[in-house]
């Protein structure tokens, strides 16, 4: 897996289906997709609740969610590290330096992005639907699944943004995962490692593979949503 040209290296990596690389790519996808799935299940309804209900402190929640979209991955990593480290409150669970810890950290990163976007999208749609849904006799609680479903394609964009953030970040997974070969090494931490080792072609090759993966997932989702938009009007 050496050579001067990073593109050749990338091609070689893909064609050879090097088991180490396959393992790294698989773990990257597994960790990031799990984190995005968990975050979406929690954040989509939460965003909708914040959009539809008025309660004391709502402004702070909205501002907080928006601010947390920019939560630095290393800080998220550090917070999870402190929670899970041996001396931490959840230290007895023994999760530090496992893929589960990485999922937790990435969920923390992705959650505010999806929740803030869900809040915005559902609030805009409620603006359009509110009279009609109230006229039909639907309560706000009843309206939440309706609005989430009708906004599904706009929300998909938010979920994708979340996936982009999760698959691209290195700080959080490095701190809580430890970049252990064969256990917690993912694409981004592998790239960081190879760069610091000086194997730039390999690092670049891995980078290209990562780029391709993210583009593949995004364009697939984009295609699906464009087609559905045309069909559903």
């Amino acid at each position, binding site marked *: 897996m050496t050579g001067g040209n990073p593109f050749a290296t990338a091609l070689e990596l893909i064609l050879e289906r090097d088991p180490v690389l396959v393992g790294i790519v698989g773990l990257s996808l597994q960790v990031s997709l799990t984190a995005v799935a968990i975050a979406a299940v929690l954040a989509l309804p939460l965003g909708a609740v914040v959009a539809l209900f008025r309660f004391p402190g709502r402004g702070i929640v909205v501002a907080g969610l928006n601010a947390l979209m920019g939560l630095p991955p290393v800080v998220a990593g550090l917070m999870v590290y402190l929670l899970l480290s041996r001396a931490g409150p959840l230290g007895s669970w023994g999760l530090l330096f496992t893929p589960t810890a990485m999922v937790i950290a990435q969920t923390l990163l992705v959650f505010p992005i999806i929740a803030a976007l869900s809040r915005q999208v559902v609030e805009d749609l409620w603006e359009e639907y509110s009279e009609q849904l*109230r006229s039909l*006799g639907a309560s706000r609680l009843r309206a939440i699944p309706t609005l989430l479903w009708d906004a599904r394609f706009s929300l998909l964009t938010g979920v994708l943004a979340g996936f982009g953030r999760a698959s691209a970040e290195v700080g959080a997974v490095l701190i809580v995962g430890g970049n252990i070969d064969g256990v917690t090494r993912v694409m981004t931490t592998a790239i960081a490692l190879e760069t610091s080792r000086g194997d730039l072609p390999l690092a670049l090759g891995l980078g290209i593979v990562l780029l391709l993966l993210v583009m593949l997932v995004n364009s697939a989702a984009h295609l699906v949503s464009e087609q559905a938009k045309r*069909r559903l009007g």
Partner: protein
Amino acid sequence: MNDLSHLPTLLPLTLTDVAFRHRGQTLLQGINLAFGASGRTIVLGPNGAGKSLLMRLCHGLLQPSAGTVRWAALRDSGRSIRRRQSMVFQRPVLLRRSAIANVEYALAVQGVGRRERRRHAAEALEYFGLASLAHRMARVLSGGEQQRLALARAWAMRPEILFLDEPTSALDPSATKAVEDAVQAFHDRGTRIVMSTHDLGQARRLADDVVFLCRGRLLERTPAIEFFQQPRTAEATAFLHGELVW
């Protein structure tokens, strides 16, 4: 839910000294009005007279700043009363799902069982000539078809009173005719009709009586024949002659 016989009747609807203020402006005031169990009332008046506002207050989408809006079925909660009325808006809001699913959704909110939902929805679409479009996405239907779907949705809900807020102002003549036929069908089934319009020909065709609003006040409530021949107020006379009323 379709057996209304055991329920106390919703009508008459009585408005007493109703006023509505928004941001320091009085948009409606001194409204005293009752809608009995049957008939077709057409709400007329120049733009900004408060026609839409009046219907939204009746329907319960807005709360009056003063006065009361009271249904005969007093003991029911607000939402269960809402479910026994329908409103058709100028621009229908349809959900991003199929035509029939839109009707089924309204019935689901009313608490109708799944199998009955499907049957009632299919019947309503059939009745409004939409059966062939049942599985098309509601949002890609034409404007006229969308408004007919909104009417079919209201039809399936079997309301005791139907509010229509300028339902034909964005439609072509044939779609307008379809809406007028639908209003007639609701009337024949015994649904109380309250409708606003800017189309005086339409008002003549449909009205049993006319509520005339101007600048947020109720100027007259007159049987239709009388209103169109000899309105009681100078403002209504001017309005019928197409003069600016201010």
